[in-house]
């Protein structure tokens, strides 16, 4: 048995070795955008949970800064209870938004205060309006942005780029264009954006929001908070997933051990051990 495990794992290691080796060469040929620096995240790791205070701060940054251009179409306001708000607080947040509803009995559409069951209203009626208001560029919906910007590597986990790290790098990565770099009209230079030309001007500045919990609103702090919030928006069931995963793996581990000994016992007469 031990011999067999050894043999099988050796084969697997050899196969993984080939893949790691070859993909290492592969990355050497990668683009000119540097890898975003890694940050410490409370929600990363097998037991990671969301930092609720950071989620609430991040939501505030989204609401006061990002939401003027970026929609969050897939997120229902009722799910804000995940951030640690109670029912009344969620209701109060929803009420701040005007939501289009209808038609009513007269066939008219009407605007009413939001309810927790509503989704976040988009800042623009359609993509064309969004482009017209943003110099031709379309601000992407942020519901899944964190997962859409992550590049995970199975064979070289240290090279994995989390979407949250990328968002922080992007939001703090604005800089003067290096000499000789042709910047298009209305474009900004960003170290971490593919091609370095981004249509979004640096969105955050020192003390742009006033945090209720008194945390100093540095650009870095706001970036980290909003990245945490956007990661939650893209993977709201992460905590449930990891909690259930632990139970599932623990169960399977015990089951495997029991079946290992059952198997050994059953085979004992054949193997004569």
């Amino acid at each position: 048995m031990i011999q067999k495990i050894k043999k099988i794992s050796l084969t697997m290691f050899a196969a993984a070795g080939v893949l790691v080796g070859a993909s290492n060469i592969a990355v050497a040929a990668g683009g000119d955008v540097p890898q975003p620096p890694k940050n410490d995240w409370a929600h990363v790791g097998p037991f990671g949970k969301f930092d609720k205070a950071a989620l609430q701060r991040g939501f505030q940054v989204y609401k006061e800064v990002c939401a003027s251009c970026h929609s969050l179409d897939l997120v229902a306001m009722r799910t804000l209870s995940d951030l640690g708000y109670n029912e009344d607080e969620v209701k109060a947040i929803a009420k701040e938004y005007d939501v289009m509803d209808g038609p009513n009995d007269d066939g008219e559409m009407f605007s009413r205060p939001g309810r927790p069951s509503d989704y976040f209203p988009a800042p623009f009626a359609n993509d064309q309006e969004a482009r017209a208001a943003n110099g031709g560029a379309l601000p992407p919906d942020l519901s899944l942005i964190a997962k859409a910007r992550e590049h995970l590597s199975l064979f070289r986990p240290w090279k994995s780029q989390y979407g949250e790290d990328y968002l922080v790098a992007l939001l703090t990565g604005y800089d003067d264009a290096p000499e000789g770099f042709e910047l298009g009209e209305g474009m900004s230079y960003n170290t971490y954006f593919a091609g370095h030309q981004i249509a979004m001007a640096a969105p955050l500045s020192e003390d742009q929001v006033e945090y209720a919990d008194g945390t100093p609103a540095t650009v870095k702090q706001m970036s980290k908070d909003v990245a945490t919030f956007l990661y939650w928006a893209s993977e709201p069931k992460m905590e449930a997933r990891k909690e259930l995963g632990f139970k599932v793996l623990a169960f399977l581990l015990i089951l495997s051990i029991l079946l290992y000994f059952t198997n050994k016992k059953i085979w004992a007469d054949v193997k004569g051990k």
Partner: protein
Amino acid sequence: MHLSSYEPKNPVMKWVEARLPIGSLIYGSLGPGYGAPKNLNYWWNFGSLAGLMLVIQIITGIVLVMHYTPDVTLAFASVEHIMRDVNHGWMIRYLHANGASMFFIVVYIHILRGMYYGSYKAPREMIWMLGLVIYLLMMATGFMGYVLPWGQMSFWGATVITNLFSAFDFIPVIGDDIVTFLWGGFSVDNPTLKKFFSLHYLLPFVIAGVVILHIWALHIPGSNNPTGLDMKTKQDVVPFHPYYTVKDLFGIAVFLLFYCTFVFYMPNILGHPDNYIEANPMVTPAHIVPEWYYLPFYAILRAIPNKLLGVVAMFAAILIVFFLPWLDGSKVRSAAFRPLTKQFFWIFVINALILGVCGSQPAEGFWVPLSQICTAYYFAYFLLIIPIVSRIETPKPLPTSIAEAVLAKKKG
């Protein structure tokens, strides 16, 4: 090998058995009536694992369909509805998405095991070919399933792969219409999505049917084994139940540990981040890659500069495997007794892994010549190495029986 027959003791079962001998069927195919070689190693677990994965994919898939909407305006949102609003929908979807990868991992190991131990050789050619039919159906099913979430990679992957068929535009009369027919229009659009959805639901049941044929054909000669020798006496054999039912269950538990680690702790690592961006025909992703399990064939496709020849080579790379039973002229099945074949086999495996990496990279720089060298080895393995080596190689002395081989191993 037939060991014993089913004799029901319970009067109800006797009644049923006289009218529908389903008890005998199970007893004789998975029960104590079916004799399997006593020396099967853990590489033989991957057949039952593949069966398990098919069942998991069908069950999770049926549940997903209850909440999914196959329409270009709603597909992406309905998948997110599953992820966010459906009870445990995230788990069902991650089980299904990662399940596809697991299914392919298991099947690749199963195929390579068959290659190594000569399980394709007479009298098991039919099992081998039916297995490859299952594999081809899996490729089609997996490809169409990947289109359903209607993300950027879904859309552009579908565009690239369906466009391959435009290489056949030289065929008179129907040539120009093949791609239009696949799309159900003039580009990948709503009719394509609906067509793929329909077929993605159908094909797994076709696979299940071919699996039954595969197992039926298997039960004629019975399992091959690491020595490649035939089962001759009862000394060589153990009843399938309880010996291999328990061993398979143990394998399943360990495999589920592996599978669930992906599902619960890195559910997106085998996917592509661009598929979390809704399909947009106006924006082409910088780098379109198929799912990992197609990559070696994708590398073969791109290794050849001519489009038609590339497509032909890609299909040939799979079809050629059907002929393996006749390309291999050795009298001995197992590579354990064929030292040269063994070495070339492992080079073949490494070569296929490198082809996979080539397929994941942009077709430029040194990846092009590397994929060409690997493509050349891939075909040379089947067309030159196996036919020649199998006929000139002197195999190591074989044990006289499976029982003797087991005894010799016990003594060390």
